[in-house]
């Protein structure tokens, strides 16, 4: 590695987070200083965001910038920005969760987990990709256990950990097949270095005929399906979300899922979106089944946390619809993921805001539908914020959720005539998938409506109180306002994610030596291709 300073520079935001997390971990030992952990975390997040912004400015033209283990593209900037923004909200929402003497560990773990997501997007090596995904997951296992003194939290931790380890092993096994096929762990090689890369192997015309590649891809897909909670690997979701404290569940809806989808984008970009029949219909089935099963199971729940857990399965299904559409769907996925992360966090924040009397004179976060009865009449503003987030999850007008669904279905329909790497039969399949999707959205509306109905139509439950935590209140309001803003100006977020995606698609095209627009730009000197120096 001859240019370590460049690597360190490219990793500056993550380094800030990790170093900051370590400092918080140390300070947490002190009784007095432990209280500032959350605020300190916010400071590091802001610092990381600043560093990310500077990096993006500095290397704006350099796409892709590849040093052996890392590859810096506009996607990285987007992922960092969204992770840090939502991450700040996650920190605020979790303000009151940990016990006094555990604040340090708790907030440090959140920062570790956040830093993992951006590493997923910057990784250029399967090993690093795997480590980054585990850096996202491992802290979440512990966070669940830390968040509540409850037997169910312990159960959730155990379940999540063992299944997570199983999925990670599956993914790693898949990576080993890819390594076997390609003979290298490097995902992208710099254009002029003459080195082998996985991209070359996977994007070959009939790469998927090679059983090694196919098995490798399927196993990887299986491992990532666990992260995004797609249907056959969704079983843990309800128990884990129920076991964790509500703010942590809100985090679980975003952090592993975002990392999983970014990893999926990375892997599929390696195939240059040449799905072939088998993988296309596999993804198709995965999307359709995930939406349907998620929504159906959510419909049967009376526990709001379990309901939102299964709905998060369904939302993964919607995003898989866009992924099935191929590279045109990426923008929609990034947009949806961001909006979904905020809406979902807002819903869980509201659950945490409404308290019910629990054991030992302690109040607990609302959990069952009945606990929310009449909540909006007691607390009109918090009720309104919850209603906005729930309407957003429903995909209703006045919320960013509408545009999320809109972009996803537009992406899916825009390949309905075939085109790209898809045949005409695939195009028809996409239309059917969109119809399945909208019918699912209607099913989803049925159970989200139950939350609204309970909050607004019923008489207030006895003994309902509200959380005193100011950070929680502010973040709940902020989530609701962001959801509204994503409706009023969806173009902003959409354009940002489109830039990120164009980075991904250009990179693949460029490295394959195709005569793309990007390469012409490169010939004209608009893009500098930095060869690796070793």
């Amino acid at each position, binding site marked *: 590695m001859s240019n370590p300073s460049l690597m360190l520079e490219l990793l500056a935001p993550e380094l800030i987070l990790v170093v900051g997390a370590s400092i918080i971990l140390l300070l947490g030992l002190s009784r007095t200083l432990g209280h500032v952990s959350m605020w300190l975390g916010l400071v590091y997040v802001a610092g990381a965001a600043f560093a990310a912004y500077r990096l993006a400015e500095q290397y704006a033209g350099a796409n892709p910038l590849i040093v052996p283990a890392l590859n810096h593209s506009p996607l990285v900037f987007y992922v960092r920005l969204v992770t840090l923004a939502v991450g700040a909200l996650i920190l605020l929402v979790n303000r009151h969760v940990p016990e006094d003497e555990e604040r340090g560990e708790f907030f440090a773990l959140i920062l570790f987990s956040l830093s993992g997501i951006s590493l997923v997007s910057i990784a250029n090596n399967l090993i690093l990709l795997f480590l980054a995904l585990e850096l996202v997951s491992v802290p979440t296992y512990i966070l669940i256990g830390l968040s509540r003194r409850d037997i169910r939290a312990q159960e959730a931790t155990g379940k999540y950990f063992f299944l997570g380890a199983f999925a990670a092993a599956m993914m790693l096994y898949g990576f080993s097949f890819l390594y076997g096929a390609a003979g290298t762990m490097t995902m992208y090689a710099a254009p002029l270095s003459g080195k082998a890369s996985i991209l070359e192997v996977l994007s070959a015309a009939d790469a998927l005929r090679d059983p090694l590649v196919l098995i490798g891809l399927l196993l990887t897909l299986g491992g990532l399906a666990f992260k995004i909670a797609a249907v056959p690997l969704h079983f843990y979701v309800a128990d884990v979300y129920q076991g964790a404290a509500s703010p942590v569940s809100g985090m679980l809806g975003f952090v592993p899922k975002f990392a999983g989808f970014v990893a999926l984008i990375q892997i599929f970009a390696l195939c240059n979106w040449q799905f072939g029949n088998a993988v296309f219909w596999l993804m198709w089935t995965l999307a359709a089944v995930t939406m349907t099963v998620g929504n159906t199971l959510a419909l049967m729940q009376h526990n709001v946390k379990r309901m939102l857990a299964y709905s998060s399965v369904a939302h993964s299904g919607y995003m898989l619809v866009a992924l099935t559409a191929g590279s045109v769907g990426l923008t929609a996925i990034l947009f949806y993921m961001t909006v979904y992360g905020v809406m979902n966090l807002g819903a869980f924040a509201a659950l945490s805001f409404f308290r019910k009397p629990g054991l030992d004179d302690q109040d607990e976060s609302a959990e069952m539908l009945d606990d929310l009865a009449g909540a909006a009449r007691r607390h009109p503003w918090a009720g309104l914020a919850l209603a906005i987030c729930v309407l957003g999850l429903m995909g209703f007008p006045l919320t960013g959720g*509408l545009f999320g669904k809109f972009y996803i279905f*537009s992406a899916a329909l*825009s390949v309905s005539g075939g085109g790209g790497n898809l045949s005409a039969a695939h195009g028809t399949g996409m*239309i059917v998938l969109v119809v399945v*999707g*909208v019918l699912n959205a209607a099913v989803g*509306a*049925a159970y989200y409506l139950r939350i609204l109905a309970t909050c607004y139509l019923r008489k207030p439950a006895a003994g309902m109180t509200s959380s005193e935590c100011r950070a929680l209140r502010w973040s709940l309001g902020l989530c609701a306002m962001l959801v509204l803003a994503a409706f009023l100006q969806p173009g902003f977020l959409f354009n940002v994610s489109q830039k990120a995606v*164009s980075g991904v698609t250009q990179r693949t095209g460029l490295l394959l030596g195709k005569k793309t627009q990007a390469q012409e730009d490169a010939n004209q000197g608009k893009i500098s291709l930095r060869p690796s120096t070793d």
Partner: protein
Amino acid sequence: MSWLSDHILSLVIFLPVVGAAILFVFASWDAVLVRRWALGVSLLTLLLAVMASVLFVQERAQNTSKSDYCLVEKMNWVGGDDDTGARAVKVQYKLGVDGISLPLVVLTAFLTPLAIWGSFTGIQTRHREYYALMLLLLGAMLGVFCARDLLLFYIFFEFTLIPLYFLIGIWGGSQRQKAANMFFIYTLTGSLLTFAGVIYLGWKASICGATGHVFTFDLDELYGLASAGALSSTEQWWLFVAFFAGFAIKVPLFPFHTWLPLAHVEAPTAGSVILAAILLKLGTYGFLRLSLPMLPGATIELAPAIGMLAVIGIIYGAVAAWVQSDVKKLVAYSSVSHLGFCLLGMFCLKMAGLTGSLLYMINHGLSTGALFLIVGMIYERYHTREMSEIGGLARKMPIMAFFLIVFTMSSIGLPGLNGFVSEFLVLLGTFISATEINSKPGPLGIWYAVPAASGILLGAIYMLHMVRRVLFGPVKEPAHGFDGSAGLTQDLTKREIGILAPIALCCLFLGVYPKPVMQVMEPDLARGLNHVVWETVAEADDPETTGGLDSRRAAITDRPGERLSRPPVYDLKEPIRPTGQPSRLPSHLASANGGDE
């Protein structure tokens, strides 16, 4: 003044929304102030709507042929000028009214203040939220009628669900939650399928349109796309089904009407009034605005099927209304029957039928809205709507009896009142529908018209049956008797007369002299119809010959006797184009589309 005329539609839509927001924020207002505020805001909205129609007439007089609609407001909302190369999305905030939407805008702005005024005694809890939701609903409904961008239309269309959901769910009867849920889920399921259709059209515009790889939802561009023949017949068929899913449930067309009686019965009076008078019209308006002009091929192909469902709905609704013992349910089922007429007139694809259909929307709004108001007034006094428990009220409440009979007659279609004009035109259109449209028989005909006409007879039977039982015979009051606790007198109070009298006057006016309204509507209806007729012409004969043009002109202008036979105020030749050179056909489209058919 010019600023006002440039932004009048935005003002009309957002004034009630702002009014609602203020109500939500000022939690300390007492009930009286809240009521006055809501009534004031809605009256101001009515004033603005009237101003908008004056400006509309002025603008139309100045530039008759320049554009299809007036009072345009346009603003880029989402994207539009993106150069990243990927498929961008362009959504506009674009408003405008034409002769089809303007009458409905005025109807909405006219009935909502009356519905609000009518709730003063009926609503006793949570005033602030109630009136805020009413105002929000008003804004959303006006938005649907004014939108000239398909996605904007859809957003307003769907948003109307939320206020009404809460209106039914909070202030409704004993089964309110069930009714609200059923209403919400049922209509949402349909409109989500419409959503898929909307996106598909946007995508089609992005690959065929002149906009170049941009999803666009501008109605003008989509109309251009349709009249350029960019949609193959299979696509039209599926898109029609997608739109049908949303609109037919909203209308509601038999057999998708099952949510309606429950929602009507459980809704508070004002909710029923708005639901029947305006929200159902969103469905018929959707057909008229989107399905007919954009999917002409499928419209002609499917018109007989829809006509059949409409006829079944007419008779089924009437028979079902006949056997009801609950007055409100009776009026609710009568809506199913009446809206069957509305769709029948629309899908007979004759000018007379279309005019009748649009008039029917307005007339049904007035008379059924008023009937629901009266049912609400009786309910407030006796806390029952069962016909077996009340009777002979004409003696106790003569003024109420007068109004009930007026609106019953209007609903039955007594000549001289508004219902007659529209019913007559709809049936006429259906009768002559089978006559040739350019050497091809039209979709409907006498076999649709005869059973539909029997629906009128049934309508007279069930309405008069209801009037007889409620108003005449020996006086019968429920055991708990008359309840004046809300400050009501036995007969109608001045406030209640003030609510019903304007509606009655409108009914009378539209029955005697519907010409001004029809004059506003007809040019745009003719334009809409031309899209459809155009399709048949393209299939049927050679439009280059003058014979083709003449027969088309005859097909469009055949209209009833001397009462309506006056020279058309619009230029029919303008929208009809020869096949060779459709005006908005992008050059690459002709070859791109050739393979589809």
